[in-house]
Each structure stands twice: as C-alpha cells, then as structure tokens.
C-alpha cells in the first residue's frame, strides 16, 4: 500500500527516463522506447489498485484520491498505453515527415511525450485546487502543442499545430482570468473552500458567475463543446492520427473531470445553481446540434470523427446539465469509459487500414470486408457503438445520460438528444456501407501486428461485455468505506 500521488511521480520518472534513454541510446530502432513506455505504464496501472490515501497529508488541499479520481487515472493510463500501440503502427508515416540524419532520428520523443501528457491527465483527475488544475492542464496542453505539430514537414500537421497553439493560449488566458475573478470574490482557490464560501457571499453574484463563465470557456475548449469547437476539425485532421485519438479521448475525459468538480462547487446555492445549470443546458444543446449536423456531409473519416467527438461532448454535457440527479456523475464516467473503447478502436483500425490504402477518407475503406473481414468487423462494432445501437457500450452510455436528464426534467435536452442520435445513425453507418457494400480498390489483404490485433480484440470484447453488463464500471466508481472521508460531496 502506498500513496496515490506516487503514481503520478512514477509516470513522470518513466517519461524522463524515456527522454534520457532516447538521448543516450545509440540504438537506431526507436520502437524500444514505445515498448518500454507501454510496459512501464502497464505496471503503474496494476500498481494503481494497491494504493491508499494517507489520512492527513499537506498535499490533500490540492489533491484528492477519491474513486472518481482513481477511475480517471486508470482511464488516462489505459488511453496512453493504447495511444503508444497506435504510435508504433503509425511510425512509418511520422518518419516520412520528420526525416533527419538517420531514418528514425527524432522519432523517440513521439513515444516519450505521451507519457508526460499522461502524468498531466492523471493530475487533472485529482486536482481540487485551481492552482493544481491550472498547472496540470498546462502540462497536458503544452505537450499536445508539440505532439500535434510533430510531423514538421507536413503542412497539415503544422497548420493544426499553429491553430491549436493560438487557440489553446487564448483559452488559457480565459482560464486564468476566470480563476482570478473567482479568487477575487471568494478569496480561495480550493474548490471545497470556494463551495463553502459561496453561501456567505454578500451582494451581487455576477462577478462570481462571470469568473465561472470564463473558466467554462477554457474548459469548453478542452472538451470540444460548441461554440468553442472551431479548432477541432482542422486540428483533428492535421495531427498525427494517434495524437488525434489521444486528444479526443484523454484531453476530453480530463476536461470533464475538472468540469464535474467545478460544477459541483457551484451547486449549493439555488440562485447560482440555476445559472450554472442554465449554462450547461445551452452548451449541451448547441454542441449536440452543431456536432451532429456538421458530421452529416463529411467524407474524411478523421474529420467525421472530429465532429463526432463534438457530438459526444454534447451528450456528456446533457449529463452535466442534469447535475443533482443521482447518477449524473456516474453517467458521465460510464459514457467516457465507453467512448474510450469505441473511439480508440476506430482510430486503431483506421491507422492499420490507412497504412495500406494511403489515406483516411471514407472511400479508402471501400470493400474492407473483402480485404480484411476481421478489421471490417471491428470497425463495424466501433461504429455501431458510437451510433448507440443496443448490446454495445455506446447504447448504455446514452441511456444512462438520458435517465439522468429525465430525473432532472430536462425534457427539451432529451428531445434534442434523441433527434441527434438518429442523425448519428446516418453518418456512422455511412462508413459501414463503404466497408461492406462498396467495391474495393484492390483485393490485397490487410493485416495488423499481432499485439495490435490483441488490443483490437480486447476493445471489441469490452464493448460487448459492458454493453450487456455495465456493472463493473459503476463498481469502480463506488466509494469504498475506507475512503468516504475524501468522497465528493
């Protein structure tokens, strides 16, 4: 039994070790760095089940190890491991665009940086103080700036990098400004202390809500919520595909943990609560409509998934607008767990297929069922789950979100949600149609590496298992008797 904060420390040490390994080793093949990273993160994932928070530590003011935090720490670890597997499959494309003195020079950091990003994601899951939230968000964002623009001889990747850098810096500005307003009103940066201070505030609540809105702008950028979603399609399409997957799963999930904690902070006073829920309502409705409608005409799969990522943020925000209902928080966590499985599965299959067909348009997937029935089936499962077809995890995710919304009488959001789910069927099944009904460009077979195949099989199996038996996720989120002291209010 050791303290949960040592998990992050271990991840940071692993990341630094990989960087030094890359700098000192003379080995021309860089894939060893990725394997070391995968092994190290896997070990830390196992160790995360043997942690126990100490009763009284100085860092407890900044950092919590409640079940929600532990859940999302493991979430970040699993995501990073799969992203590294993807990066291994994708390295051919990266080396093509970063050529240096030797074929693989400069590739090592592509495997080391996600590990450091993972540490940031894990800290975000635990942060309960604005200072730690800010620092961890920056750790994530800055390493993403580098990763998004990693293919430096590819103009699309550079464009994505510049867009992400400028808009990311802008959203950071909003974030800090919002924090100063909240601090100015309450005199606290700790979320619990802020929540305790709000009922005793005298006078106008406008400055407090103004600060809240500014922070929401920054978080809306992170989770890709409309109207802060403008960067998403270009950055997702231009970035290296594993990084796109990392952005859409890791960055979004960590953003939602912070959002959950932040919204919780403002729930105690009815006057404030009303405004906060109203904001979430508007964000959810806009995001649902924008994401789903804009996804309809897309022909590039990466771009389609970018809009789909916006749409999924919409469903998650429906749950955020239903805070107060029992299970709204768990619905978000469950939805994100399902979203991890199906999105990473899609990207993994996409990388394998795009390596052979030379592109990631939907047209490149034509006739995949004849070139590789297994990959086509995996993609079919992922698409069905993203659309929310029963017996997949995507169905239960949406179901729990709508149940939470129903309990809070958010009928309008449920209505919008159901209509947009229907439009989702159209664009996800477009991919399925291309794979099973269209004729392939050529008949050569497509194979994945054995380890990649194993990951694909695991993801497919988990989508089905959690699609009929969602219980294990909720068990992970349950407060163990020992830990009640640190549980969410």
């Amino acid at each position, binding site marked *: 039994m050791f303290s949960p904060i040592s998990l992050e*420390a271990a991840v*940071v040490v692993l990341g*630094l070790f990989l*960087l*030094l390994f890359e*700098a*000192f080793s003379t080995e021309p093949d860089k894939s060893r760095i990725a394997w070391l990273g995968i092994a190290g993160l896997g070990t830390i994932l196992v160790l995360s089940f043997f942690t126990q928070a100490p009763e009284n530590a*100085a860092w407890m003011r900044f950092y919590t190890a409640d079940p929600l935090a532990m859940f999302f720490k493991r979430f970040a670890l699993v995501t990073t491991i799969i992203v590294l597997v993807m990066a291994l499959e994708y390295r051919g494309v990266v080396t093509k665009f970063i050529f240096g003195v030797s074929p693989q020079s400069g590739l090592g950091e592509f495997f080391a940086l996600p590990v450091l990003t993972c540490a940031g994601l894990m800290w975000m899951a635990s942060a309960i103080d604005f200072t730690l939230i800010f620092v961890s968000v920056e750790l994530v964002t800055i390493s993403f700036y580098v990763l998004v623009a990693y293919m430096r001889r590819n103009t699309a990747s550079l464009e994505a990098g510049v867009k992400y850098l400028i808009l990311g810096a802008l959203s950071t500005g909003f974030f800090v400004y919002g924090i100063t307003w909240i601090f100015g009103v309450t005199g606290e940066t700790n979320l619990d202390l802020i929540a305790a201070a709000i009922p005793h505030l005298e006078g106008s609540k406008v400055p407090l809500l103004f600060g809240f809105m500014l922070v929401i702008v920054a978080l809306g950028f992170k989770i890709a919520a409309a109207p802060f979603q403008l960067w998403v399609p270009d950055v997702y399409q231009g970035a290296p595909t594993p990084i796109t997957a990392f952005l859409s799963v890791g960055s979004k999930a960590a953003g939602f943990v912070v959002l959950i904690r932040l919204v919780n902070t403002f729930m105690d006073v009815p006057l404030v609560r009303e405004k906060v829920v109203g904001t979430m309502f508007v964000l959810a409705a806009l995001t649902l409509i924008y994401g789903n409608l804009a996804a309809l005409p897309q022909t590039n799969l990466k771009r389609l998934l970018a809009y789909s990522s916006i749409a999924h943020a919409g469903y998650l925000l429906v749950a955020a607008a239903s805070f107060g209902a029992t299970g709204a928080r768990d619905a978000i966590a469950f939805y994100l767990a399902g979203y991890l499985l199906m999105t990473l599965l899609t990207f993994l299959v996409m990388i394998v297929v795009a390596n052979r067909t030379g592109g990631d348009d939907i047209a490149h997937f034509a006739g995949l069922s004849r070139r590789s029935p297994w990959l086509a089936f995996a993609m079919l499962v992922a698409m069905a789950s993203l659309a929310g077809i029963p017996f997949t995890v995507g169905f239960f995710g949406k179901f729990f979100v709508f149940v939470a919304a129903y309990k809070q009488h958010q009928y309008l959001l449920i209505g919008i949600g159901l209509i947009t789910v229907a439009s989702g069927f159209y664009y996800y099944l477009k991919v399925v149609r291309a794979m099973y009904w269209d004729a392939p460009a050529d008949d050569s077979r497509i194979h994945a590496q054995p380890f990649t195949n194993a990951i694909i099989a695991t993801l497919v199996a988990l989508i089905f298992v959690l699609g009929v038996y969602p219980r294990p996720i909720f068990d992970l989120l349950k407060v163990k008797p020992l830990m009640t002291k640190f549980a969410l209010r």
Partner: protein
Amino acid sequence: MLKDYLPVLIQALVALGFAVGTLVVSVLLGRSARRNAMKDSAYECGMIPQGEAQPRFSVKFYLVAMLFILFDVEVVFMYPWALNYRDSLREHGPMIFWSMFSFIGIVTVGYVYALKKGVLEWKN
C-alpha cells in the same frame, strides 16, 4: 461604485475618438487614394529599406533563449524558497526539501537531455 470609473470611460472614448478622428481626417485631407511603390514600402527613418523584414536566423538562438528562460525562472522560483527555508523547515519537515529537490532534478534531466541533443553545439 460604477461612477468612479467614469473618468476611465471618458479616457477610453477620447483615445478611441482621437484614433478614429485622425484616420478620418487623413483620409479626407490626404491623397490616400493615390498609391505608389514608394508609398507602400516600409518606413525606416527615411532610409530605403533593405532586405527582408523578417530575416531567417538559426533555430539555435531560440533554443538558447529557451534554456535561458528556463533557468531564469528556476532561480526566481528558488529565491523565495531559500528565504523561507529555515522558517518552514520546522513545520513541513523534509517535504519542503524534497519538493525543491525533485523540481531541480526534473530541470536537470531536461538540461542533460538538451546537452546530449547538441543544443549548445554551434559548429554544425
């Protein structure tokens, strides 16, 4: 309370009015419609501009500048820590020491990495 900010508002209006006013007057009085190559060129104290406005120079300058900022910030961070070290030692014990130690450790790893990658080698 809002009344106190009235001078600020007036100041902002004056500033905006001056900027807009001069632009409008210069359009009305000046012959802004007639453009030529000389007029469109950059104004450099009356001299004829030479070369590019943004010449390319080696990325090494940026790397050295970044390393400088890194260690500059590190020292800025260490200074208040060193001042408070003795007072806080009793209360926080070894934690205050190890926090700074790990911070310096991480920065040192970054420095070693940069050295090994040849950031400070100027000859190629």
